[in-house]
């Protein structure tokens, strides 16, 4: 049975948004130049934009295959959900929930991190960073996280439409030009929340995985607020030494390959592929957990000194 027909022509929101992306990056560059608030580097922005262009071209090549996977799963759906106002509302929340888990797992498991690391590999945080996207979504099978929605019975095109809306929403939050948004900070993923997400400060690591709604982080205990007394330092734990798009796209995959081919057991193979980023058999490399633990030790060592000083 075919999926229920959409009552309107489904827009390709990402493609429609491209002119706005370009205009806003241009406007932010001018704003940064004039106000000195925020930062740009031409080579860094160039690399980010090249990654975005590559993502869009490669995404177009694999789009049909991923849509076919959705329809294959949809054949086994539990419900047949129509296109109505309530199903659209439900799908919005379901897609955002799927995004949260995709994003969280992309940070916690190296296989998925190998694709997602690209987005975090800039040491800048501006609108061009939003466009620094992976080229390896298809082989990284990150699209698997949205298949359960087709299994539940949401029409695949409905899921893909909300996925596009989420992507477009997330563009504007990659900026240092917007501080905080009052009560909206409780519900929405905002520039402030997402700055924390892109930070490498131990306090901020592995936090704020939200797409559109920050409620999932609040619900699952991964929410960390931005502090005025600790400015985010952007990038990754092992920052890249290059703006070459191919190095940016494939460096973590090459790292997995190198580690797996030197592994001494199946346990090591599994750990290198699906352990937390930075996992090593002897624990000699840095993971988020080890960085947070070392930071906690430094904090507790510093605390008695500050108390004594008071």
């Amino acid at each position, binding site marked *: 049975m075919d999926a229920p027909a959409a009552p309107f022509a489904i827009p390709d929101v990402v*493609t429609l948004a*491209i002119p706005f992306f*370009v205009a806003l*990056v*241009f406007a932010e*560059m*001018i704003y*940064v*130049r004039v106000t000195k608030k925020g*930062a*740009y*580097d*031409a*080579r*860094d*922005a*160039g690399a980010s*934009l*090249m990654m*975005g*262009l590559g993502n*869009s*071209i490669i995404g*177009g*090549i694999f789009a049909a295959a991923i849509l076919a996977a959705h329809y294959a799963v949809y054949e086994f759906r539990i419900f047949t959900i129509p296109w109505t106002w309530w199903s659209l509302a439900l799908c919005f929340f379901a897609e955002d929930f799927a995004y949260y888990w995709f994003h969280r797992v992309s940070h916690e498991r190296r296989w998925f991190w190998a694709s997602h690391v690209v987005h975090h*590999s800039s*040491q*800048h945080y501006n609108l*061009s960073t939003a466009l620094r996207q992976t080229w390896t979504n298809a082989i990284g099978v990150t699209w698997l996280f949205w298949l359960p929605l087709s299994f539940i019975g949401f029409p695949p095109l409905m899921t893909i439409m909300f996925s596009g809306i989420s992507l477009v929403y997330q563009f504007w939050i990659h900026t240092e030009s917007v501080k905080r948004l009052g009560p909206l900070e409780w519900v929405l993923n905002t520039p402030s929340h997402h700055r924390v997400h892109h930070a490498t400060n131990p306090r901020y690591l592995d936090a704020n995985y939200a797409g559109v709604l920050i409620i999932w982080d609040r619900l699952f205990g991964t929410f960390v607020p931005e502090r005025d007394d600790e400015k985010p*330092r952007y*990038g990754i734990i*092992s*920052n*890249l*030494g*290059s*703006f*070459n798009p191919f*190095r*940016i796209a*494939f*460096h*973590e995959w*090459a*790292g997995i390959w*190198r580690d797996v081919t030197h592994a001494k057991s199946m346990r090591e193979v599994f750990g290198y592929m699906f352990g937390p980023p930075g996992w090593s058999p002897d624990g000699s490399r840095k993971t988020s957990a080890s960085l947070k633990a*070392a930071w906690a030790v*430094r904090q507790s060592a510093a605390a008695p000194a500050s108390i004594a000083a008071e």
Partner: protein
Amino acid sequence: MNIEQLIVALASAAAVAALILVAFGLGFRAKPTLESEDAVRARLAEAEPDASPSDILIAKDGAAAIVRLADGRIAVLRAVGDRFAIRVFPRDALAVAAVAEGLRITFADLGFPALKLRVEAAPSWLAPH
């Protein structure tokens, strides 16, 4: 890829090229340098708070520095755009070769390409091997 997608890709490529030119035109091309050992220590402390520098070698142009840590590991600081990328490696993870005007250091990491370090002479702890 259909004709519509091709047009979008070409228009996007043109927009990317235009934005890159604008970014250069607006002067977003700072080149940070490491002027002194204190500057190296400060940057290293921010990125690697537990690292304890023992010996420091700064490139002539200030674009990079190599630091031997107290535990024998090597920290590498290199300018990448207007920022520094700072990494710590076990000594045996670096391959050092003498080249004209200095050293070429290679790393087993696709994301961290070989670094040409302009120095007068290599210290014994960074001797080519």
